[in-house]
């Protein structure tokens, strides 16, 4: 028992706590979103102008907006839309970024150079600019939003994959397996993939948080999800004219975005630390 291992253990406990908080909170929001498919307190689109701008009450838990829509119902729908947009964007990123990253790591220096070069240029073009460009070309919609954010995700997922594979294949135990006659596929399956998969999950969760923010930002300026669909960004936009009269309308989507992003970032930060330890080869298990 050395000084270092004692410290490591207590930080490990704290980190595990944070990870649990992050995962549970993320899942709760996701659940709220999924419930909205089957049930919301009121139909999300139903207008009841007579009941507009109500304060929270037993009837409308979070009150109603300027059109008399139930804010809780809108929020649940909005969470779902935001998650779907962010998740599809991560899927787009993974679908293209994963093979690119694997190729860069495994297919020799020229492919690596090419992927890194293209990534550098794509990184210079922020997701927001990309989304504005796509919205201008194809008209603003949830689909262009997903593609825009997805393109940004390609870069980060490709680079994360490449990094994980390169670092993992440098481990002595991978070299030992190669000497032990393991084929390329065996190496990937037994030694590389478990770590790389974790690295990609960690990066994917971080990109999910990024997607939620990007969706909110772009929908807020009208370049994303269009009414009558709703999303957290659209709710912010709708509430803005009434922000002085009815701050709650602005606060609900704002706070929800904040909490979701914090929950996702807590999760991804802890996952990333664990992956970094794997990649460095420091993690010698319970010492």
């Amino acid at each position, binding site marked *: 028992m050395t000084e270092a291992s004692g410290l490591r253990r207590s930080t490990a406990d704290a980190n595990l706590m944070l990870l649990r908080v992050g995962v549970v909170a993320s899942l709760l929001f996701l659940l709220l979103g999924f419930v909205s498919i089957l049930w919301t307190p009121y139909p999300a689109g139903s207008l009841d102008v007579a009941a507009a701008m109500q304060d929270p009450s037993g009837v409308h838990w979070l009150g109603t907006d300027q059109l008399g829509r139930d804010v809780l119902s809108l929020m649940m729908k909005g969470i779902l839309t935001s998650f779907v947009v962010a998740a599809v964007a991560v899927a787009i990123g993974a679908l293209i970024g994963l093979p690119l990253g694997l190729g860069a790591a495994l297919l020799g220096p020229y492919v690596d*150079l090419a992927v890194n070069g293209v990534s550098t240029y794509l990184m210079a073009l922020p997701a927001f600019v990309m989304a504005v460009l796509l919205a201008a070309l194809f008209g603003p919609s949830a689909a262009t939003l997903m593609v825009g954010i997805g393109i940004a995700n390609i870069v980060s997922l490709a680079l994360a994959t490449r990094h994980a594979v390169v670092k993992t294949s440098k481990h002595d135990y991978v*070299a030992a397996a190669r*000497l*032990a*006659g393991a084929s390329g596929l065996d190496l990937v399956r*037994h*030694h590389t993939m478990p770590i790389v998969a974790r690295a990609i999950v960690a990066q994917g969760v971080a990109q999910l948080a990024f997607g939620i923010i990007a969706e909110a930002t772009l929908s807020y300026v009208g370049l994303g999800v269009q009414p009558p669909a709703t999303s957290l960004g659209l709710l912010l936009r709708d509430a803005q004219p009434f922000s002085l009269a009815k701050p709650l309308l602005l606060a609900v989507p704002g706070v929800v975005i904040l909490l979701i992003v914090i929950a996702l970032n807590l999760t991804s930060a802890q996952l990333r630390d664990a992956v970094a330890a794997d990649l460095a080869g420091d993690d*010698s298990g*319970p010492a």
Partner: protein
Amino acid sequence: MALLKVDNLTISIGGSKVAEDVSFAIGKGQRLALIGESGSGKSVLIGAILGLLPEKAVVTGTMSFDDQPMPADDAGRTALRGRRIGVMLDQRGRGLAPLRTVAAQLRDRLAATTGDPAAQLPELLRDVGLDPAAVECYPDALSPGQQRRVLLALALASKPDLLIADDPVAGLDVIDQRQILDLILKHCTERGMSLLVASHDLKALAMLSTKVVILRGGKVVEAGEKQDVFGHPKHEFTRAVLSAGRHRARTLMRTPIGGALLDVRNVSRHYAVGVPLLDRRPPLVAVDAVSLSIRLGESIALIGPSGAGKSTLLRIVAGLERATSGELELEQMVYHGSDLPRALRHLIAFVFPDPVRSFNPRHTVGESIAEPLQLEMQKSVDELGARIVEAVNAVGLPADVLTRLPGDFSVAHLQRLAIARALVTRPRLMVLDDPIARLDVAARGDVLVLLNRLRADFGLSFLIAAHDLDVVRVVADRVLVMHKGRIIEAATPAQLLEKPQQPLTQQMVAAQLPDVGIVPVF
């Protein structure tokens, strides 16, 4: 009058005691060594004396410096650290800021302590044997030995009364190691500086110290004047430590040396530098036209300073890397490194320098040890299972360790398991890349003895890279000295140790540290 006095020091971190009831004193001009295995509390004690422990550490007991109680607040400690107490903690150049030139860092240090950097820098550099021209660069341009000299210069800049050094020669090759030790000793004797040094290199400590404290699990096992403790060790643990530090050759029955097993002919390995296509710098030559041959049952040691190309050569032999030119021949089959035919792979086994990194932390050691057996799928499952158990038993461990994860083992046990993995295919040739570099003194001797026994039992040939001549003495039949990618000298161990021919070899032999204590009579 004690300069530094430590009384009943107990340190606990996170509820567990890492040092318990430790007392010692260092008088003016005295040199005290903390001896113990890794994890015995050496570094924690040094941290406590310097006030550098993490905040959650609970320290009880008293410390005094120059008959004044050690200041409890950080400001008071800072006034001592780097002024009256010189500190050399960081290894491998990590204590140097990467983005400032070495000379600038030394000038800063001098300005902070004495006031006139311009006048004193040349003297300070001369004191640690550095060329003034060599320090006008960034730390990463310096060799490990030079970096260590710079760290020593930083520690000595304030002309401290006490130098505290934690593992000052870790990771250096023999020549650098000896030079740093000589420098520290010179400063101690010339200026009457006191020294507190910790290391697990027993010989280095024996050379530096006048007093020793032997630690085990945070407790003092034995303490006293060096000649008393080393000459008449009272405690069993001290005796064990001392005898482990003296690797003795065991003349066991050896299988007779037979015909040629492996031929290496004119093997070179170049590495391209920088970006492909764009960089026109000449390639780096790691191995330069090396030829050697190993006979059945023979043990060859490859020694040389770090960066000589030893590891690259071994990795080519084992089939991890491909030679740029030249060829190798094993069992009438020619190969060039990584194209070693699968049918021959079970004949060559490789042992990595760092056992911790050579096991997948998520696989049980059994899985890892069994991995090479896929080379012999034609054998029956029962036979292969028996092989695994045999290999683990041969390295002195019970078969029930196989279901555990690498994290459950000490570095020394992991290296045994790595050797077991190397044995499992019944190889003819075992290639070992500095197998004892990461081990404690005690474990080193054990591993060398184990290697000798395995060689006798299994009729193995060895190709061992080492930076330590002890290995040469214990396990080698022939020694090859490698420098800058070439083999510059070949000799028997006796020839090499008594009549080294090349200047480099002579330096290495001369840099050996004297043996510790009295030679036991058996």
